[in-house]
């Protein structure tokens, strides 16, 4: 006797979860993004205990678990601590692949910032390279107001 499964065509439903969000940036993050947008300045905050400077700035230090009140301006230049070139596509990418990401330690910061690498020969990227922030001509108060980091000559 034939199994009923042999006569069934397995269906697949296509769906999408569309749940909109409005993420609060908070005062600290808002100040940082405003500075990017309005003055092309990059700011961080410094923990009173461990003295680390965080870029992007944070309201409290996760290691020391204390609030942070000191703001420190950092430069537009930094060192490339890591990079990758993503060669696959998906809908959250701001540009089509090959798409390079970097962890850039800005001069004055004690850790690195995740961002895009642009206007670069991707084959010549090296850890330790000097990088420079390039700001977007039209900025709206987002991390992408820095358009990308590019190798600084």
């Amino acid at each position, binding site marked *: 006797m034939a199994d009923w499964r042999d006569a069934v065509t397995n269906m697949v439903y296509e769906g999408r979860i569309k749940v909109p*969000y409005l*993420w609060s940036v*908070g005062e600290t993050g808002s100040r940082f993004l405003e500075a990017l947008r309005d003055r092309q300045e990059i700011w961080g905050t410094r923990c009173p205990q461990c003295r680390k400077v965080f870029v992007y700035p944070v309201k409290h230090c996760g290691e020391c*678990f204390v609030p942070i009140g000191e703001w420190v301006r950092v430069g537009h230049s930094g060192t490339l601590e890591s990079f990758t070139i993503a060669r696959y596509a998906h809908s959250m990418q701001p540009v089509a692949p090959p798409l390079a990401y970097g962890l850039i330690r800005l001069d004055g910061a004690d850790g690195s910032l995740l961002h895009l690498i642009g206007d670069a020969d991707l084959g010549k990227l090296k850890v330790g390279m000097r990088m420079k922030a390039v700001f977007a001509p039209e900025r709206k108060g987002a991390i992408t107001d820095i358009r990308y980091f590019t190798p600084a000559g």
Partner: protein
Amino acid sequence: MGKRAAIVGFGQTHQRSSRKDVNGVELINEAVQAALAGADMGIEDIDAIVIGNMDHFEGINYVDMWSAEGTGAVMRPVMKVTTGGTTGTTVAMCAYYHVASGMFDKVLAIGWEKNSESDTTGAIITAFHPVWERPSLGGAIAGLAIEASKYMHDYGATERDGARVAVRERLHALNNPFAHLRQEWMKGIPIAQLVDMIVGSEQNQVLAYPLRMSDMCPRTDGAAAAIFASEDFAEKLAPVPAWVAATTNAHNFVYAGDVNMDRNTTLAEASKKIFKKAGIKEPLKEIDVCELYLPYSYAGLKWMEDIGFCKYGEGPKLLWDGVTDMDGELPVNPSGGVMSSNPIGATALIRVGEAATQIMGKGSARQVQRPVQYALAHGFGGCYWADMMLLSRKKPD
């Protein structure tokens, strides 16, 4: 055998409809700092952290990882548990089991919500089956409206009965500086008149019959944190620790259509289990205060019956007799309950924290004015899931 555990601290943010000054991690940190400060502890005293929320309500995947810097989880054990609306009690239970296992002495339980950031109904609908249920589902309000309708039909309860529950919650909230909805205008007006006003108001919009705006809970931003400690530390950390006497739950249903609309059977099951475990024979007499997760008014009638505080159909009588008011035999929701504040991921944890607060005697204006030996906390969510935690002043045997 396990260790006995007690709540030694509880902190919460002031619940508001929208906290734009902080991001989610910062909001969580506020509750954590409040809990630690309240217990005179530092993060270095914490051995493990448990956190919960519903991913799609904030749009954050792996929230325990994302919030590590704010919860104190950096270089500490952290675990996420989540079960829908019951998440807060699930978090409390998880923290309790961490301590009761003997593996951790002091555990931080965290619940939070930035409701202002999300389309809650949109997210709730995704709790249901994409093929069988989602296309026809009306979200949480419609589901509760069906229950209310049936209850009114089966037992003759009226809109006035529902409104009386709402009035109780709102009046209680006036004593709670942390509550979201504080209807100051209600002060000094007799209860029967308040009920008339609510039922008679044309501005009181019908959402899904019989539920009107006044019957529902708000959408709130807030975070809460509770500290559970083992018997080796509890008495040193709090003058009056709130011991966990028993905890149970029942999450039986999978599909919305499976839910028994006659009676809240999972609540009844969880209640029977917990009273048996704790040796409670006459709940109405023996329990001194309750913090129940009543997401809407009619639950304050029907679910009292399902828990076993009174017979079926007698919920309204319990209410109108004043039994559940602050000076009644069994005050319900001195905090104002879920109808006054609903930061969903924190809501059920706040029930636990508020129950603990009553035992600890830290309720200030909302403190029940009689000795509190037993405080019952309850969580609700999903397909009529029920979580229960019974706290006691006396250390369990």
